[in-house]
């Protein structure tokens, strides 16, 4: 816990973190603006599910994976760049501790951004008004979606974290992050159970009716037929393999 707490301290006055936060607020504000400007009679905004899934799509389909990929790269690379890795290693902090503390920070950031967006949705729903389903049940569904996403997207990004541990610069992992998103953007249904980010979508579709409809739209009308257990199993397997490979890569590196 101390290591994680100090990891958070290291981000004080960091411009990247402030930019990420500002962009998250902007994306949430855009969703609120849509909720305010689209009439409740329109099928695009006739229930709270439309608002929270819209904000969720804005956040999680591209923004969150890109942000986490960049964030992870910075987390690992900056210890080399600032020459602080050697100071940490002789405390001693093991490379396993170092890896998992940084992944924990990544998860905290992801959950934090999802929580902010969720809260913005609730506030936006109250401000825009007129949502007949803005009740505890819908809020629980929405909260669950954001929580699952906040926890699973960082796990889906662990292969990129592996590249960040290997890399001696920013370009490779950040470039790989963008390439990593291509299959999920062009044909997510085909990669469900294979690509971790597509597998995450397979899990979302089972949270509520609203999320099922959202996933259907994201899948370009193709209904996901892969079992959520296969999606979860594949996601965890790839995540665990990436974590093991990252730790091995870190252990092989000499200062």
């Amino acid at each position, binding site marked *: 816990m101390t290591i994680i707490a100090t990891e958070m301290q290291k981000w*004080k*006055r960091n411009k990247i973190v402030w930019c990420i936060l500002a962009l998250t607020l902007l994306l949430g504000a855009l969703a609120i603006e849509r909720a305010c400007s689209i009439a409740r009679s329109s099928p695009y905004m006739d229930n709270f599910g439309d608002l929270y899934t819209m904000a969720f799509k804005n956040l999680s389909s591209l923004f969150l994976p890109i942000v986490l990929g960049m964030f992870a790269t910075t987390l690992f690379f900056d210890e080399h760049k600032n020459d*602080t890795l050697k*100071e940490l290693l*002789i*405390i001693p902090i*093991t490379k396993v501790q170092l890896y998992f503390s940084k992944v924990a920070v990544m998860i905290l950031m992801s959950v934090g951004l999802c929580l902010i967006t969720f809260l913005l949705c609730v506030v936006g729903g109250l401000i825009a008004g007129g949502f007949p389903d803005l009740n505890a049940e819908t809020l629980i569904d929405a909260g669950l979606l954001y929580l699952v996403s906040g926890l699973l997207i960082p796990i889906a990004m662990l292969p990129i974290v592996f590249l960040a541990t290997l890399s001696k610069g920013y370009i490779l992992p950040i470039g790989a992050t963008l390439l990593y998103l291509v299959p999920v953007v062009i044909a997510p249904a085909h990669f469900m159970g294979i690509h971790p980010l597509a597998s995450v979508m397979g899990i979302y579709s089972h949270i509520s009716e609203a999320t099922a409809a959202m996933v259907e739209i994201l899948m370009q009308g193709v209904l996901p037929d892969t079992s959520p257990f296969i999606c979860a199993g594949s996601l965890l397997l790839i995540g665990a393999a990436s974590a093991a490979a990252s730790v091995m890569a870190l252990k092989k590196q000499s200062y």
Partner: protein
Amino acid sequence: MSDFVIETKKLTKIYGEQTAVNSVDIHVKPGRIYGLLGRNGAGKTTIMKMILGLTPITSGEVDVFSQNIKGHEKRIYPRIGSIIETPGFYPNLTGTENLEIFAKLRGTPRPNAVKKALEVVGLPYRDKKLFSKYSLGMKQRLGIANVILHDPELLILDEPTNGLDPIGIAEVRNFIKGLSAERGKTILISSHILSEIALLADDIGIIDHGVLLEENSMEDLEKKNRKYIQLQVSDVHKTSLILEQQFRVTDYAVQDEHNLRLYDTALDMAAINKALVVQDVAVISSQICNDTLEDYFKQITGGEGIA
């Protein structure tokens, strides 16, 4: 139990086809300052990194506090403070914030440890200046503050006066001396500046091209620097013949056409001078000399690269 705080046995590091450190045996005694002296690129930093386990050893052994560091990191590292190359800190944090992070990670129990460490190196506590705005000298001072933060028994300092102005160098030197003399710390310090090591170290290891050429106490090294008679004559060959045949002198060295050194300072120089003049050799000068540590260093390493 070994008598040494650090002991290396046949320590070797090979990068590809280049041998950076070759079979080095270092012995650092408790409570003493060991100066590792060598040119830039001689292998000093690599030795320190291997001692600290920051870089894998190709062959040989390192014992710190009589234990192999590998597998005993949790027990050994808290007893060590080190600066390797340049001190590493987070540029977006102040000096105090940086030290607070390291104090927290080390579990430093002493209250005000950060404040005290900053006071010792002359940096302000809770200053708003970020590390990225620090001068090289301030960075080095903060590095030293980080080294002493947890009151370690052993300090490993790789060129700690780099970037400091002359007054700063003197302050750090006195501070390091004080740590050893007053608080009994064992210190391994590297430098390419001979005068620094000469002023600081109790023991010295001279390293060149990855090979430890000499390991000795400063006291013995000073004794070892031989006295000699410097003789300047008109004909060095004739002088050699006279010395060998008439005075049975063999312990001498010809330097050039006019200069030679006689290493037996008990020789009867009056008689030698007289013999040389009689045999038509002009004696231009004759004086007793003593080698400095710098002369000695040049002699054993072949010369250049030491300030």
